[in-house]
């Protein structure tokens, strides 16, 4: 390692920033959609889910990258799965012991991180073939790219579906039809199909601004 590159070389920085924009796991690679639809009814679970995914993703990428030369290629998928699953169980146990209230909020979703295809995809596509530091950045970038979309969708759905943000009422009570006003929460927003439509709209906006993403084949 004579020509050691700096920790935050342009190449490494791209690993971090690309997944936020033009290589976003949800809007461009269209991975991890299922959990994005399920957890985004409210902002709070979206944020906690985003954080948990970032933690699991960074650690899994790092561990797999450290082990990459020893993993027998025939059972590499199983090895990755075991690593992800153990990390998720560990995260779950720690949450239950120290921040019980938050762990209750997340309930099933922590377990669902195991099935998140972004994590598996990044391990397979990146961590198995790269050094630990770039892998860590890649995990951080992709986790953040996923989390960012989750938070945006969660924000919109909570605002229009429940009239609250982070469980605080933002639409004045007097606006509601119930109290003689003109406003009604959009019940459709709290159902999963609307999350798909919201993600679709985000994809639309992103592609209309960045023509490179438009598939012309």
């Amino acid at each position, binding site marked *: 390692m004579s020509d050691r590159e700096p920790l935050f070389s342009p190449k490494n920085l791209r690993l971090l920033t690309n997944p936020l924009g033009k290589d976003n796991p949800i809007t461009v690679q269209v991975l991890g959609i299922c959990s994005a639809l399920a957890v985004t009814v409210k902002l709070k679970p979206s944020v906690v889910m985003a954080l948990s995914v970032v933690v699991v993703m960074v650690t899994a990428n790092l561990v797999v990258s450290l082990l990459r030369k020893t993993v*027998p290629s025939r059972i590499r998928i199983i090895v990755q799965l075991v690593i992800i699953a153990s990390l998720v169980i560990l995260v779950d*146990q720690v949450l239950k012991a120290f921040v019980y209230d938050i762990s209750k909020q997340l309930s099933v979703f922590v377990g669902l991180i195991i099935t998140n295809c972004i994590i598996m995809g990044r391990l397979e596509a990146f961590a198995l073939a790269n050094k630990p530091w770039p892998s860590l950045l890649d995990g951080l970038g992709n986790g953040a790219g996923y989390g960012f979309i989750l938070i945006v969708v969660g924000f919109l759905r909570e605002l229009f579906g429940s009239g609250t943000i982070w469980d605080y009422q933002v639409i004045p009570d007097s606006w509601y039809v119930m109290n003689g006003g003109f406003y009604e929460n959009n019940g459709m927003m*709290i159902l999963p199909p609307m999350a798909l439509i919201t993600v679709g709209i985000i994809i639309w906006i992103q592609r209309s601004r960045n023509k490179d993403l438009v598939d012309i084949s």
Partner: protein
Amino acid sequence: MNTQSNTYTFVYAAIMVVVVAALLSLAATSLKPLQDKNVEVEKKQSILSSVGIGLDAAEQKNKNTYIEQLYKKHIIKTYIVNSKGEKIKGEAFKVDMKKEMAKPLEKRKLPVFVGQQSDGSKNLILPMRGKGLWGPIWGYVSLQEDYNTIVGANFDHKSETPGLGAEINTERFEQQFVGKQLFDSNNNFVSVSVVKGQDTRNMVHAVDGISGGTITSNGVDAMLEESLGSYVTHFKELQKQ
């Protein structure tokens, strides 16, 4: 070393499994006491919050001791009855409602907690357990000394969908139960129903369900009827006194 050989693969998998198993069991056993404590405190907190006590626990610096103190101060008596209203021996706090609700009515052990407010008035606190959409739901209902009018209710769930079924543990849903009644004017047990699309504010035996959470709402409805229904004989005896 040849990382592709069969022997290597087998040994690798074996070592991996042992390491992971050791790591996870270590984590599970070392964190178990903390988790159990959390569960116990949560149960006490639910019992207290059904009578409107300890609602500020989240702001306390040491939540666990705060709840323990309140529980000791406000829960003055606990006992167990059966469906015929006879008292049975045992510690009410340790009764597992999951097991009891699975038994036929006559064999159930039904815990009762008696709470005392700061002004001296007493409330009966009763546990409930039922099924939601994805898993169990449970809660506590507290009654006034007429053993009919609800003072407060508190619900919780294992895995209902956030924003939909999980809304049963929000204050907005729970507050609806205040003042509702379990018995009709002829003193027959009618429970409190969870209904859809009606203005329930002036109804004595109904509360408004959750949009998008119909199955969970129905679960709450069934849970109230089934769990509180087991106590009817005991309530009637108390009403006579």
